[in-house]
């Protein structure tokens, strides 16, 4: 009889223990189940301390923030961004819930600009294109982080990056078609240093335009040319 009671007690203890564990697992699934079905990992600087100091020499510090299209404006915002880009967001790097990493750059306690990177499909996997921007949305620096192509050195060369300095969203929005690759104005003057890497060159230009539009729609380029009712001062 004692043995039977002990067995029953043990059995119920196991049931209770299992129920607790199962409840926690269920809670996990419920709490996470309501979120969007698509997502991806964002684009961070490999070493922000070193990279921010190099890309923004007058900086004394930076603050990292994360912004995602689904949290900022959802499907309507995504549609607006796609319209301005002139192409659909697609694939692994352009899902609606990609958390974009924006570095707010400070000189002492004064904000002086931003660094923002985006992932972009390249010739051999993803490439990462960072823009260094002043508060007016002018490009102060251009930096390709990840790129495994054998011609990456030419596209990462400072000489290539210097061609982007001074350009704004207006230059890309009005003068660069990401589908045809047709450029005019100042964008047309950007020369590909590695003709063998035409796909990566075009990917870098698309990433630049995408980067600027996202910054504008996230409200960080309050002086830049934008669609009506678009940007606001963050």
């Amino acid at each position, binding site marked *: 009889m004692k043995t039977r009671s002990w067995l029953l007690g043990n059995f119920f203890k196991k049931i209770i223990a299992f129920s607790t*564990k199962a409840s*926690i*697992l269920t*809670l*996990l*699934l419920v*709490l*996470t189940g309501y*979120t*969007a*079905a*698509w*997502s*991806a*990992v*964002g684009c961070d600087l*490999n*070493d922000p*301390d*070193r990279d921010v100091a*190099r890309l923004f020499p007058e900086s*004394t*510090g*930076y*603050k*990292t*923030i*994360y*912004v*995602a299209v689904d*949290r*900022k404006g959802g499907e309507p915002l995504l549609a607006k961004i796609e319209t301005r880009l002139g192409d659909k967001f697609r*694939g*692994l*790097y352009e*899902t609606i*819930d990609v*958390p974009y990493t*924006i570095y707010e750059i*400070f000189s*002492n*306690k004064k904000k002086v600009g931003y660094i923002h990177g985006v992932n972009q*499909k*390249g*010739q*051999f*996997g*993803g490439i*990462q294109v960072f823009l260094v921007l002043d508060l007016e949305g002018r490009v102060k620096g251009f930096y390709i*982080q*990840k*790129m*495994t*192509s*054998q011609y*990456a050195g030419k596209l*990462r060369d400072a000489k290539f990056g210097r061609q982007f300095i001074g350009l704004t969203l207006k230059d890309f929005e009005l003068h660069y078609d990401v589908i045809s690759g047709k450029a005019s104005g100042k964008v047309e003057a950007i020369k590909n240093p590695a003709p063998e890497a035409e*796909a990566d060159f075009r990917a870098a230009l698309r990433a630049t335009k995408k980067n600027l539009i996202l910054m504008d729609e*996230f409200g960080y380029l309050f002086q830049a040319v934008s669609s009506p009712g678009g940007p606001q001062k*963050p």
Partner: protein
Amino acid sequence: MMFKTLAICISLLCLTNIGQAADHLLYFEAQGIAGYSSELKKPIYYSMNPDAEMQKPSLGFDYLKRFSGESGDVATFALQGRLALTFNGENGPNDVTLEPQIYNAYLKVKTPGPYMWIGHNRPAFGLSSYFDSHGLLLRTLAIQGFGYDRDWGVGAYKDFSWGDISASVTTGSGMPVYAKGNYMTAARASYGVLSQDNVNLGFSLGYGNTLDTMGYKLRDGDPRLMKLAGVDLTILRNRFEHRFDFLAGRWLGEETYALFYRLGVNLDSEGRLKVEGQPTYWKTGGVENYQMSFCFSVLATSNLTVRLGYTFDHITNDNRVLLQLYYYRPI
């Protein structure tokens, strides 16, 4: 106690929500794994060993928070935990247990000099000091048991334009914490910034008295001498990824040599399809072994990765086939 702590952490983190702009990221992680072992002649539900922390069917989270002052970031906190199901059927019918695991758990602080971290993080030794393989089927040397993929302690690292230097002092116990006179010191210097140069060559030294653990299981309560030197190399070029890791010296008191080479080939321009091959060789305590592994990965969606792996182990003559579904998304 640990189970309850982990459960509370998970529940609280799940209730957090990223606003329009956030200082934190929270990911949900889930994985299922099943395979077949010719040595055991039955299905298995883990990639390596029932006692090892990886890979097992599990649910978990990955949390990262930045702390900022008026003029910028000052610290980062990372916490990654899982509830893993362990199917231990090595010696008979499957014994199923639920195991809470703490993986990343550290506070990283900016100082005028290097970054400093305290908690459960990567020791500064070999390829595993910077290559994150916690979700992968193929094993690095640390995962294989020559070192620890994560260990409790403190560390520092500093990046330079030519490479980086890192050092750590940890408990030499891996996933659990023990104070049995065990400790591990390690330092690594590397040349090349992988994300810019597509190459990184590292040299490591390690010394201490470390414990023989596998996952949370203590296999030997007496700390053993660790005195290792290592070289690691990563080269990325076009669609090819080469990773090489070699260590030599004394590990757990035994004369040890271990090396592996991993070749990865990205089959498409978005990195959705990847094949990898990896021979691994080691000799420890006079016993030699080698393994041959392959893995085919498909990023079915940006959240879901499907991996099909195969490993042959020379000593056990085991042919092992594994299927893994790995799910990771922000919440």
